[in-house]
């Protein structure tokens, strides 16, 4: 029993690894700060493109969404980081992660926004357009505020998925939280840093998961 505790819950080792993990957490946070806004904005633009009446815009966007929802993000990331150099495109790990995530996330967020926009009835559009508001104004002031509110739980749970997914950046040696924990594990020959990293993820994300649940119940009520 003691050996198990020593291997997994060794507080001495955790304390030593903490500064390394905190540096990793900072990188994770930077990553989130880059990829979440890009995904949210990219997804919105993509959703609007898929809903366009112009086929030349809607079709390619729909294909884009389908492809990048079907491609595993890990495959995408390895391709962007290790595949593109064969075409002469060499990216830093951070840039590779941002690009791979943007492709993946915007496709996922686009589907959420699309459901939200489609949940708003034609009457809202007609009322707004009949008062002289342009299409863009109608979208901005009438449709999107309601659409986003309707899919807020989905947007939020998607965002949580993105935060969790940043851990795959460790495969391209980006020093985020999981990579730092893995490093600390190999330096100390002890699994406790991994347990600590898992705990950090849990502590940060659990309240958000609860929040999503609250939103869902409130919308259902």
């Amino acid at each position: 029993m003691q050996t198990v505790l020593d291997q997994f819950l060794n507080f001495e080792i955790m304390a030593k690894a903490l500064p390394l993990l905190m540096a990793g957490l900072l990188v994770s946070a930077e990553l989130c700060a880059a990829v979440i806004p890009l995904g949210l904005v990219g997804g919105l633009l993509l959703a609007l493109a898929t809903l366009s009446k112009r086929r030349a815009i809607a079709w390619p966007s729909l294909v884009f969404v389908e492809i990048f929802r079907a491609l595993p993000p890990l495959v995408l990331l390895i391709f962007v980081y290790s595949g593109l150099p064969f075409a002469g495109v060499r990216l830093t790990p951070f840039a590779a992660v941002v690009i791979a995530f943007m492709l993946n996330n915007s496709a996922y967020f686009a589907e959420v926004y699309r459901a939200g926009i489609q949940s708003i009835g034609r009457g809202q559009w007609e009322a707004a357009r009949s008062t002289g508001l342009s299409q863009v104004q109608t979208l901005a002031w009438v449709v999107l505020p309601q659409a986003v509110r309707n899919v807020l739980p989905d947007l939020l749970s998607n965002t949580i998925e993105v935060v969790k997914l940043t851990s795959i950046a460790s495969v391209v040696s980006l020093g985020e939280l999981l990579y730092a924990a893995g490093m600390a594990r190999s330096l100390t020959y002890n699994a406790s840093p991994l347990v600590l990293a898992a705990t950090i993820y849990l502590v940060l994300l659990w309240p958000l998961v609860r929040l999503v649940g609250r939103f869902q119940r409130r919308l259902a009520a």
Partner: protein
Amino acid sequence: MSPNRPMLEIVALEKRYGDNVVLRGVDLRVARGELVFVIGPSGSGKSTMLRCCNRLEEPTAGDVLLAGRNICTGSSRDLDRLRLEIGMVFQNFNLYPHMTVVGNVMLAQRKALKRPAAEAKAKSMEMLQLVGLAHKAEAWPAELSGGQQQRVAIARALALDPKVMLFDEPTSALDPELVGSVLKVMKDLKDAGMTMLVVSHEMGFAREAADRVVFMDGGVVVEEGSPDEIFGAPKAERTRAFLSRVSG
């Protein structure tokens, strides 16, 4: 514009959805300050005709002129500007549920007319006063009855100082006891000189307030005349059949 020119002219209006012909050449004129009432069986094309008047429905052929200006030509920005002059009231009110009553009335004033906030607010309160709902300015649409919501929708359209008001079955979704309050607002509007084109089944209101009644069936105007003529002595067989059906 000459004073004799109609405020709203519908000329040879056609609307087709594929093989389905909904309007087969409708001609209709509404003079300044006139209230024209359109009746007809469901599927007669009356709502489609009304929705072509601000191009919520795109006409297949024909023209709609507002004070002499063709709304069927020109860019989408031209259309947005013309729509400011054409108020529309819908069967289902279509208030914006995420905005308060006064927010609903202010939105297009601010964003489309670019009125300053204070002026838009003042105008909104004036319009809400007109429909008897100034005390509900800060309420949410969901807190109002159907009749109140429809009166807010009327105020929202009026706040843009339209030249014409289009009413698309404005009382059809209301409980019977709430119909009167909406009709009263419409009567007040008429008395204030508003030009109105109304699609509705409220025959009693048509008798009382309409200058002219138009009977549509099968995508054409079958007959038009004063309320007395249409309700008292309809000429066309189809009109007689329809009126005897609705009066039970």
